């Protein structure tokens, strides 16, 4: 069951990455993974490698852009930052997420109420 729980939807991960970059500014892959783990507090255990599949997908869609830079520890790393199109997508997706989670929440409450 634990594995099931960590299997997060592709779209959800996209949304989390976009939100993270929107909130934190440019970050490297490790930073994004760490941030999502912190926020998820063990409830969401991501295989850190999968974050890169999500990143390349978002880059291909021009929602984020990537550039090599230097990390706080003076290490070469690739930094990702959200683009204008990415912000628009984030707003649209966030609204969508609110709506869907609201519906699901109500539905679940309704079922448990029976």
């Amino acid at each position: 069951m634990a594995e099931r729980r960590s299997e997060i939807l592709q779209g959800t991960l996209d949304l989390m990455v976009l939100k993270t970059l929107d909130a934190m500014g440019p970050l490297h892959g490790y930073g994004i993974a760490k941030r999502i783990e912190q926020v998820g507090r063990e409830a969401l255990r991501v295989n850190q490698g999968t974050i890169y599949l999500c990143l390349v997908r978002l880059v291909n869609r021009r929602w984020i852009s990537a550039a090599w830079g230097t990390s706080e520890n003076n290490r070469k790393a690739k930094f990702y930052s959200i683009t204008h199109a990415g912000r628009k997508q984030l707003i649209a997706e966030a609204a969508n997420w609110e709506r869907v989670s609201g519906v699901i929440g109500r539905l679940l409450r309704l079922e448990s109420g029976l």
Partner: protein
Amino acid sequence: MWTLFQELASRIAACFRRRGLDSDFDRELESHLAMLEEDGIRRGMAPHQARRAARLTLGGAAQLREAHRTTRGLPFLDSLLQDVHYALRSLRKTPAFTAAAVLTLGIGIGANTAIFSTIDEALFRPLDFPRPEQLADVFAFNKASRTFLSSSYPDYEDLRARTTTFQRLSAFVRMPLSVAWGDRDERLPVEAVTGNFFSMLELPPVAGRAFRDDDDSIAGGRVAMVSEEIADAGSIGGKILVEDEPFTIIGIVPKRYHGTNLNWGQPPQVWIPLQATAIVHPRFRALDIFHQRAMQWLLVTGRLEPGVSVARAQAEIQTIAAGIAQSAPATNRDISEIVFSASRAKFWPAYRTSITRSLTVFAVAAGLVLLLTCANLSNLLLNRAVGRRREFAIRLSLGAGRGRLVRQLLTESLLLALPSCAAALAIAYGLGGILARFPNAWGLPLALDGSVENRVLCFCMALSVATTVLFGLAPALQTTRIAVLPALKESGNTVSGGGHDGLRNLLLVLQVAFSMILLVGGGLFGRSVMRGWSIDLGFRTEGLLTAGFSAPPPGSAAAERLRSAQRGLIERLGALPGVESATLASDPPQNQLHSRTQIQTIDAAITADRHSVGPGFFHTVGIGLLSGREFNARDDAAAPKVAIVNQTLAARLWPGANPLGRSIAVQKVAMQVVGVVRDSRYGSVWDEPRFDLYVADSQAGAPASYLIVRTRGNPAGLASTVAKEWNGHVPRSPLADFRTADELLSVALAPQRLAAAVFGAFGLMAIVLASVGIYSVMAYAVARRTREIGIRMAMGAKPAMVVRQILGRSMAVAGAGVAAGISISALLARFVAPQVKGISVYDGGTFASVAALVGTVAFLAAAIPARRAARIDPQAALRAE
């Protein structure tokens, strides 16, 4: 939508930057691992623990890399590109193979494309008019003599009045006329057409207007249309002189119109109404040509009512013709009419068979070359694939699927298709040009442009791809069906050939057989040409120079002027330095068109070839006079009519008796025979002796239009001297088209020369390919069995025995190929029989010498590997393992 498109673009781009993106990702993962490790150490882990934990957290690098590729690129395109990349590399590594494959394919497909293009243009391409399928030609057909004829004007009028299946029915005739206008004064092809001609074709003029029915009358007939090629809208309203008669230009005909008939050579340039022929041709008026059913001079073309089939029109036209035959039995008893779809009847129907036949022969030759190419390609690919068995075995054992390997091999074949197609087009273009420009290639003056158009391009590409895929597939399937372990254990030269040998031997037999067939064809046509050159023509070609000039229509004032000017001129030409004698004739040597005429004596009536010739003709041309005399200057229009016959005609009309002084009636004109000459092949090199009747040019209705000059030494060098003298005296009929008799003979032999060249070239290429095939198979066999041969020689086998074994196999293959080639050639021979002239198509000498040639070449090809086998040093061979 835009996002999707952008993503697709990025993915496609990613496939092409694979290596860069891979290393970029590797660096990214590295830095990720390093950061994880640092964090771990900071949290108090031992360095090795931290590294292990970091790897676990990140996940498997190899899988990640693979997943990254799939996510960022297109897996399908990616593997395709990989295949292409790999295929290119392996083709580059074997330049000899690649060049051989591309060249063979290029030649095979190019030859087919050129022939296909010519066939398409001559037989199938629709005419360039709106709804060409509605256009149909009506030809008169003599049921008794089974020949096609032109139609008479009254017949055309009856057909036009009674038909219900044709919307419009037109008649026209093409003739060269002198056209003067502005500062131009030249002989141009002119079409005289009925008033409905252009509306029937639905060919609107580019400027001005087209003929109408009311233009087509003697009263309204002085109007003309001119081709866009020589005039523009500004010419409308201007005057043009046709045979010195003034016409007004009313319209410009688009230059894409080349006439509906291909076998007249040059396209028409000027059009006049049909009735106006009586204005420009006084003789037509005298003959009352528009009311004579006996005068057959028109071609009839029409546009069918929508939805009417050619068959229905045929049925109706035939009924009308039968009606005419009943009401006018004297002229039309045997005349029927045959309707052809105009796109099919692009030339005189009687020519269709001969054109189709010679095109078919070439198509078969090209087809053979293609088959041969395929056999050769298959062999090349098979050789190559067998050489790569270990590579495949390794890839299979590393987990590559068989499908993937087959796909890889097919990619290689397809990559060959592209350059092959380019090579093929280049070859097709060249060959097509040669075919179109080769004078008299089809034995007829066909106006083909030999262009390579889109349909042909598609044909070529389809053929390239189909050939390479089809013939790449068999070796691909065969070589990937290998057991991995034995193949891996194989070391270069102990491979057992397995099932390939049978396929290879079959391919070799086929190659030898095809080369044999092509070479036999080349040999037959070649011998035919040699026969043509060596045959006794009955006249002397060397030193003979001919030139044509345009004779005005008979009966016109211009014709009389020309005739009187010629009288002294011929003698002066004969006195020029280097000239022996000069004369006039109605046709040059090897003209092949026979003007036929009826001869009647008291007890016989036969048809003979009629030639009108000037004084001194036989002396000049070199046809021997057997008895009597030649024509001379006294045989003029006022003198009694005289004739000369050849010996065959004399023997037919007066067997065993003296023909001199006899009377004959030629088209109801009484003539007296004054001479008998030897038979000759003046008209056509292949003709058996025919009935030849010679009449005096000065007494004939139609004046001669060829000057014939006997020279000493080089005839071509005298052309300008002769032209200067002639043109100074008769500038309105300048000499043109100087040809020596030898040139004319070579043009007459053109169909055979072309066929000999094509078959010979294809055949030589075929035999080279076949011998390379034999050589490579045998060389491979020897290399493969070096060890076995070494052992056998160590055990006491003599080199001679080894040689015999290798040669034995090659000669068995070659023998089977030669036998197959001979039998197929013998079967096919009768199809080329009409084109192979002067010798039998079962010419034993040709068959035997080609068989000997093929056998020798095969022997030589096998001798090199056999020698190599005989020189194998047993010790070295055994130690090599």
